């Protein structure tokens, strides 16, 4: 067995050393009736690398990879080109097979990277401090809500209707158990987000308002107005971003007054991966809130010789120290994804990020113009970054499935996202990135025109 270095000779010598006559002696504390008499039923014996690779490749080929189709899906997961350098770095054994950097003297590689990552995220979000990452955007969103409750000592959460429905559902799920009260709504098919309606729902019991930016329909809400309204009532504004590339083109949530900014970092460096592992980003605008933050934090310090070094810090917030009094039960971050994000962001730099954002936006504008030439297709929102909503005048879900059969991955239907909302069912979310070619747009347009004819 290729992963097991012990030889039978080794095993015999070791059993002799521990004074056991057979390996079964070492399992003596397992009651007889609890021991499996034979091998796990149905599971084949060990297999060669080639056999396993073949099996997995066969399963892989049953999927339509995004590279093999005109591809327009977004809705919280975006396909961007990841430079080959990123994968090279994350496959370095010293990053890939290291543990959480609890021994900082021999983990400066991971720690310095995390410190750089935190700084990159904080700057991108317009915040003072970011943590070392969380599971994903949706769980980070819930952690932000929980943090807001700790900060404000209030229990009423106002969710924008245009928050990603999975994110909203995670918040609703958790709130059931924490007794937070959730005020939520469905999005309405309007060209601009209903900021006024949202603001009207904020009251003096509100711990936080959660607003996605750009929102699930691709619209860009006026965070500053919402922030003002929330602050006036003593509530925090939580901004949620699911497409970090957008922040190369639009103003940062922190700059607009968001108190906590969370999001999904997947778009930079991580890839689609059918939904995971992804990368939760979490930042606070004001450093005073840092001790209420969940998750790991890396900080700068010095070693015994006065050299700069980095350590995990403020761990008294965390479960392994505080146990039931911790700010969160979280005990991992998304370290390797954070590395991928940080390497990609370092390659981009400010110049590259801005160019990338400009390119995405420009292509999306072209796509919107092209699609709206199709009879029956209407552009919902005039303003967007790289994702916009069109209405098709018919059930978009059906259209998406039909186009998939023809090898075109047309986008995400609002019916898939909001199955309960009949009013939204004609809506189609279309995302366009630098990986989209003008030919792809043309293919989509033709296929769509045909499907709607």
């Amino acid at each position: 067995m290729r992963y097991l270095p012990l030889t039978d000779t080794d095993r015999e010598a070791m059993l002799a050393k521990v004074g056991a006559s057979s390996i079964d002696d070492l399992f003596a504390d397992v009651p007889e009736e609890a021991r499996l008499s034979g091998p796990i039923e149905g599971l084949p014996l060990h297999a060669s690398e080639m056999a396993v690779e073949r099996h997995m490749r066969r399963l892989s080929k049953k999927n339509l990879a995004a590279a093999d189709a005109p591809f327009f899906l977004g809705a919280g997961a975006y396909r961007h080109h990841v430079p080959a350098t990123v994968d090279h770095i994350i496959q370095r054994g010293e990053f890939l097979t290291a543990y959480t950097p609890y021994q900082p003297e021999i983990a400066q590689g991971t720690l310095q990277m995390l410190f750089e990552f935190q700084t990159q995220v904080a700057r991108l979000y317009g915040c003072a401090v970011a943590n070392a990452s969380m599971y994903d955007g949706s769980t980070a969103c819930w952690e932000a809500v929980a943090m807001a409750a700790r900060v404000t000592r209030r229990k009423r959460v106002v969710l924008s209707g245009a928050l990603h429905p999975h994110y909203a559902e995670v918040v609703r799920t958790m709130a059931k158990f924490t007794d937070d009260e959730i005020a939520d709504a469905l999005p309405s098919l309007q060209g601009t987000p209903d900021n006024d309606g949202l603001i009207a729902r904020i009251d003096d019991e509100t711990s936080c308002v959660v607003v996605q930016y750009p929102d699930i329909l691709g619209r860009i809400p006026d965070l500053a107005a919402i922030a003002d309204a929330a602050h006036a009532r003593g509530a925090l504004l939580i901004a949620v971003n699911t497409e970090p590339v957008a922040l190369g083109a639009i103003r940062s949530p922190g700059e607009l007054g968001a108190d906590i900014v969370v999001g999904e970092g997947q778009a930079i460096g991580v890839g689609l991966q059918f939904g995971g592992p992804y990368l939760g980003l979490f930042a606070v605008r004001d450093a005073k809130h840092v001790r209420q933050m969940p998750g790991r934090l890396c900080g700068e310090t010095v070693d015994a010789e006065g050299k700069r070094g980095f350590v995990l810090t403020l761990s008294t917030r965390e479960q392994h120290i505080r146990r039931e009094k911790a700010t969160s039960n979280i005990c991992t971050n998304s370290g390797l994804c954070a590395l991928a994000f940080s390497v990609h962001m370092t390659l981009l730099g400010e110049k590259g990020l801005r160019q990338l954002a400009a390119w995405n936006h420009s292509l999306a504008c072209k796509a919107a113009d092209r699609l709206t030439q199709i009879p029956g297709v209407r552009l919902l929102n005039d303003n967007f970054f790289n994702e916009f909503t069109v209405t098709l005048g018919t059930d978009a879900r059906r259209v998406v499935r039909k186009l998939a059969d023809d090898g075109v991955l047309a986008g995400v239907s609002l019916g898939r996202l909001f199955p309960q909302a009949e009013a939204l069912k004609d809506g189609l979310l279309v995302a366009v990135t630098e990986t989209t070619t003008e030919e792809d747009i043309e293919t989509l347009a033709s296929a769509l025109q045909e499907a709607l004819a």
Partner: protein
Amino acid sequence: LEEPLIFEIGHAQTSGVDLPAIDRSGPDRLGGMARTEPIGLPGLSEPETIRHYTRLSRQNYAIDLGLFPLGSCTMKHNPRLNEKVARMPGFADVHPLQPVSTVRGALEVINELAFWLIELTGMHGVAMSPKAGAHGELCGILCIRAALEARGDAREVILVPESAHGTNPATAAFAGYRVENIPANADGRVDLEALKARLGPDVAAVMITNPNTCGLFERDMKAISDAVHAAGGFVYCDGANFNAIVGKVRPGDLGVDAMHINLHKTFSTPHGGGGPGSGPVVLSEALSPYGPLPFTARTADGVVHLVEEENAAAFEHTQAFGRMTAFHGQMGMFTRALAYILSHGADGLKQVAEDAVLNANYILRSLDDLLEAPFGHSGPCMHEALFGDKGFGEGLSTLDLAKSLIDEGYHPMTMYFPLVVHGAMLIEPTETESKAGLDQFIAALRSVAERAKSGDARMKRAPYYAPRRRLDETQAARKPVLAWQEPDSAR
């Protein structure tokens, strides 16, 4: 050479990517929200980037470099096949919201892995979406709460052994429960009688780690489960130590109702410097109806379906407590874990447990003449060996021994955990270490242990030969510097 920060060597105008010039016709459509201020993100060219991160990487210790004896963390070899498999385009380059007809193979991976996890644990169902072990714990506890609420039984307390991982009480508290400790007996195991005495109508669940964090198998597990069930509660098992028994013992046979599985421990998905993890939770028949959405289900025709909010009813799963995360869980870890399971097979997984336990006992018995083994009398250990700091020289602590081990070329063991042993040192070698490697490690550990017992004051300042000397953690926490700032604007 010291490696500077990217902020010290990069420039806003440098980039390691080449992007085409935009031919922009007309104004933007950003609704007046266009970014105007600089962001402050430095860029590096590709050669500078490669060099920066390559140099940084070399300041890390890793499994690829040597033994990583962190008790309870199961730092085993990460097979390279699994990295290759996870990168196959059909897994890495598919969107979670693609029409189901275009992701049948991905759903099959999830379903196939789910099937083997259920088989290996002897349970009834599994929630695949939790993102890490602690997330899985939370999922399991929420299933328990949902099940209790479904029968109108509001219970308030969760019992947790003193030796439990910190995530256990934190999770219970996060799910709205009050946490009470269960005492251990002199053997290092749960005190069955004390537990029985505490059980009652207010106890929602007991959270047990088995094998426990003292490295011992809870002999009375079945009796504990029976007692908890008789009192109307549920048994949560922390699966962090499943590596010791995989393929040999099925938790379901011991009466467990829910157990998370750290795919990054037992099934060897890479730790990656702190994640991502993946924490599927296997569930008993009693809890399965409450498992969260989404999940996969194979129908009689062999087709694997994605069960989400809208079609849960069609799959008779209407009592789901909700959703743990966006999308479907850690696909990238599922492919790796499935490749791991298929590579080992039934015989290999059993061998994993046996070699893991053999390696740990070999360490225990090669050191217990020198280091205090508080439960060395309690029978063989499972996959980890626990020592205490008794007999160390004046002023020397477990921390000093651990830091001295760094100078011997090793990552230290888990320290000061479990809390029930003074100056605890918990060593888990895993099954992927060779005997020669263990012998070398034992020799190094004996040498530092002897120095600790003889009171070698030099150890107080170890490590001497690492990329950094001891770091000032107090300063880091007292005056937190959590982001880089331009020197002129800095504190």
